[in-house]
């Protein structure tokens, strides 16, 4: 059988299905109009039959149970339970804290094991197309890391499940009632995921070339389908708790499982998590490569892991760039669902978290850019562009400072007097969204510029219209930057709210135009370009620390944003449907939240190092000891020197 055709057919069908379902905007207007079945409190339901009745003269009653009209009456629907404080189990520690840590750890690992097969599949395919064995080996090595991570994901999932049922039994009872058989579908899918994962990894060398390779790719595709399905099923639970659909105001189920799953926030979260997983996974394998680079014992190893680190970083930053847009979509849907929830997140008590987010994304962008700048040393041709680095750095730092400036300050009366108001007259305006949107978009534009310069460093254009294309690229950058600033300043400060909000889309579109134009122009410009040789491995040790900074920042950021997402529900387990009356039903202070994030980040760091160690261990072979002859002084080296 021609497996190549099979693979391509499956891939195209999947992309079509996925694309269509993503585009069909999910909304809970799909919920059925029908009132819940069995809402009537009729006379029949009030009469409780107590048994069979037999009248004189009537035929003998049959021994089989006859259903009377009353029994066939449907049960009135059960809404969400209303809990009191005493209904919550007490275990001597904060229930929320336990579930927080368990859930976050599980999500870290789940994101990782879902993401890696995705880019591994692409890398494997690239390796097959180019014939470059390095790609295939790298893909195989990434999968090795994933195997151990997969076990840990499952362990943490089990731990989380037990914690949830122990500490929030009534909520879980309600969620089981709402989601019904779907939870077993989820559990069952793990059989497919596990089978495909083991098959994918262990058949690597057996299905290495030609037609068989297509078979291997098909297995990998199946693995990703299973993984993505698991992702979207689990996402439905989280988004249901934020914006319930398919239930009435009391929480009683009124729709089918699709209406319950397809809430207004489901697809935005699906998209955001899908992309973010890839960025996160790329960052972690980048750290693996950085670690191996620094521990490299040969020039060839150094070159290999330098190349691996670059590729991983490329994946991480490439996936990272569209994330703000996916996040914007999520926030827009939150605002559309409930303006109150939206403002709680960004204008209310959780607003400060977005200042912390600015610090984290600033770190990510700085680390990513620094890695690219350091990487320029691999190629002589980069000297043409290195003068731009200081200006890019300047813009990054300035924008970062704007982004991190808060709007609202908690001031004492004395401070208000000194300031002349509750907001600083100069810095206050920098604290609101228009300024921050300018800052973010500029940071993304110059990050892309760093990337573009790096990619150009080893090429010299030979096409005849090179001058024009370069002029066009410069023009696009300049006009885009002016447009971003104009949109932010004019619509942000001088028009009404709706135009202000709408202008942020204009800014995002400008950034996207720069990225797309950059890719297109470079492709045209460097047709048959002259290449200047680049040396892998010729990069400073210090640059590898950018590869460690990235996953740490990504991990902490993931914990931070996950915290925002789940606490935007405030004192509700399921927003508007099931109130949270536990002792932990308050929004904790940001310092407490930050400490929790640090705990999970450090735990994750430890576990990831364990995984890397296991991966390294699996390719370590102890040499067989050789017997030492008594008369000779020479001892054959049984172990390699150094390290």
């Amino acid at each position: 059988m021609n497996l190549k055709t099979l693979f391509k057919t499956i891939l195209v069908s999947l992309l079509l299905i996925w694309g269509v379902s993503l585009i069909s905007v999910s909304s809970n207007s799909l919920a059925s109009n029908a009132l819940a079945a069995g809402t009537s409190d009729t006379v029949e339901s009030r009469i409780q039959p107590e048994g069979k009745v037999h009248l004189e003269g009537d035929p003998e009653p049959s021994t089989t149970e006859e259903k009377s009209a009353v029994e066939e009456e449907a049960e009135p629907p059960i809404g969400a339970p209303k809990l009191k404080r005493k209904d919550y189990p007490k275990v001597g520690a904060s229930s929320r804290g336990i579930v927080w840590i368990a859930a976050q750890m599980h999500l870290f690992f789940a994101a990782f094991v879902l993401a890696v097969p995705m880019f591994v599949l692409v890398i494997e395919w690239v390796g097959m197309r180019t014939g470059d064995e390095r790609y295939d080996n790298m893909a195989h090595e990434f999968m090795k890391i994933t195997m151990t991570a997969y076990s840990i994901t499952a362990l943490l999932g089990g731990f989380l499940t037990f914690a949830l049922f122990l500490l929030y039994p009534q909520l879980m009872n309600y969620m089981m009632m709402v989601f019904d058989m779907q939870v077993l579908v989820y559990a069952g899918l793990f059989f497919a995921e596990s089978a495909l994962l083991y098959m994918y990894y262990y058949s690597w060398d057996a299905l290495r070339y030609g037609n068989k390779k297509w078979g291997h790719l098909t297995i990998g595709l199946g693995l990703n389908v299973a993984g993505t399905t698991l992702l979207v099923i689990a996402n439905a639970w989280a988004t249901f708790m934020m914006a319930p659909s398919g239930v009435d105001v009391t929480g009683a189920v009124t729709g089918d499982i699709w209406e319950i799953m397809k809430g207004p926030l489901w697809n935005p979260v699906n998209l955001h998590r899908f992309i973010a997983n890839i960025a996160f996974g790329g960052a972690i394998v980048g750290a693996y490569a950085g670690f191996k680079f620094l521990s490299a014992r040969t020039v060839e190893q150094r070159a290999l892991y330098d190349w691996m680190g670059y590729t991983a970083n490329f994946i991480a930053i490439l996936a990272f760039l569209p994330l703000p847009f996916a996040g914007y979509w999520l926030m827009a849907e939150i605002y559309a669902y409930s303006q109150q929830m939206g403002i709680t997140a960004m204008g209310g008590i959780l607003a400060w978290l977005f200042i912390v987010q600015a610090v984290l994304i600033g770190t990510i962008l700085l680390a990513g850019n620094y890695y690219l700048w350091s990487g320029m040393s691999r190629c002589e041709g980069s000297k043409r562009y290195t003068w731009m680095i200081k200006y890019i750095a300047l813009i990054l730092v300035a924008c970062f400072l704007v982004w991190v400036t808060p709007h609202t300050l908690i001031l004492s009366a004395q401070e208000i007097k000194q300031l002349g108001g509750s907001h600083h007259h100069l810095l206050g305006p920098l604290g609101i969204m228009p300024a921050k949107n300018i800052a973010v978009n500029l940071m993304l534009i110059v990050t892309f510029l760093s990337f573009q310069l790096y990619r150009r460093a080893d090429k010299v254009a030979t096409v005849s219209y090179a001058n024009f294309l370069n002029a066009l690229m410069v023009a696009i950058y300049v006009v885009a930057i002016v447009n971003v600033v104009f949109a932010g300043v004019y619509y942000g400060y001088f028009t009404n709210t709706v135009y202000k909000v709408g202008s942020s889309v204009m800014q995002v579109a400008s950034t996207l135009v720069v990225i797309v134009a950059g890719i297109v122009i470079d492709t045209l410009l460097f047709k048959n370009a002259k290449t200047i040789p680049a040396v892998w491995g010729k990069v400073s040790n210090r640059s590898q620390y950018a590869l460690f900074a990235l996953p740490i920042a990504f991990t902490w950021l993931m914990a931070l944003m996950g915290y925002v997402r789940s606490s935007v529900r405030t004192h509700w387990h399921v927003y508007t449907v099931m109130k949270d009356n536990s002792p932990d039903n308050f929004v904790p202070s940001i310092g407490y939240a930050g400490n929790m994030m640090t705990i999970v980040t450090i735990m994750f760091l430890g576990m990831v190092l364990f995984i890397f160690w296991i991966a390294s261990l699996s390719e370590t072979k102890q040499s067989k000891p050789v017997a030492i002859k008594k008369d000779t002084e020479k001892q054959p080296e049984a172990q390699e020197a150094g390290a």
Partner: protein
Amino acid sequence: MRILNNPVIAVVVAFVVAIILFYLLDHGIMSMQGLPLNSDLTPAQ
């Protein structure tokens, strides 16, 4: 299109193209959201 090799012409044409592109983009994006603009990019509502 040899004239475009002249650096000055190239720069001028490039900027004109870019400005037109972004002007149209601005109008398009805002109208798509139900927020029409006047020719001078001020809000029409």
